[in-house]
């Protein structure tokens, strides 16, 4: 089945990023397709590449990059939301991109299921 995933909260501050990641991993292992992961609201901070998370905890940023690399998942942060929060082209993690809400629209239309984590 085709899943689209929206994440609305920032990494570490809220658990939404973690739950989304664990959900996506499980969905992939069950053979589902992830159409796209779209970050909105504070969720856009997930793609910031200037973070240096504590060594003794999970690295949320590196996890998204790996997920994109290993499974070819399209990972997009909303440009309007990014501009308000200082997430900027040139300072985002590998394998992600910044784009418009059209990407959210598209994935919602295309997917069998939209699930939001926030």
């Amino acid at each position: 089945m085709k899943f689209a995933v929206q994440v609305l909260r920032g990494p570490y501050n809220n658990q939404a990023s973690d739950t989304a990641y664990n959900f996506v991993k499980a969905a992939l292992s069950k053979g589902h397709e992830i159409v796209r992961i779209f970050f909105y609201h504070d969720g856009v901070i997930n793609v910031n590449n200037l973070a240096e998370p504590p060594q003794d905890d999970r690295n949320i940023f590196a996890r998204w990059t790996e997920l994109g690399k290993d499974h070819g998942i399209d990972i997009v942060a909303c440009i309007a939301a990014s501009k308000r929060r200082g997430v900027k082209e040139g300072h985002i993690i590998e394998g992600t991109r910044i784009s418009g809400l059209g990407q959210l629209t598209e994935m919602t239309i295309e997917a069998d299921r939209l699930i939001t984590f926030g």
Partner: protein
Amino acid sequence: MLHTVNKSPFTHNTLTEAARFATKGSVILLIEDGTLAARSGSKHEPALKEIMSRNDVYALEPDMKARGVGSVAEGVKLVDYDGFVDLVAQHKTNTWL
């Protein structure tokens, strides 16, 4: 329909509100701080039982274990992330933020 709830019932009215919009056959899944609703012996348990008289209630076990929720209210079904995925595959999903 699958309704997910990630807020504590002790501090937010989210679960109560979600339950008002759950039709017959709809399922409620407690995740993150929402799993605090699945404790047995709390002030919120009667409200949970009332909800379970109409709708199936699931709780994400990894989140329950993370919160040391020892004793689970009778009737709550536990799922892991695989079970969460299955529920989403079976139902359209509405997230109650």
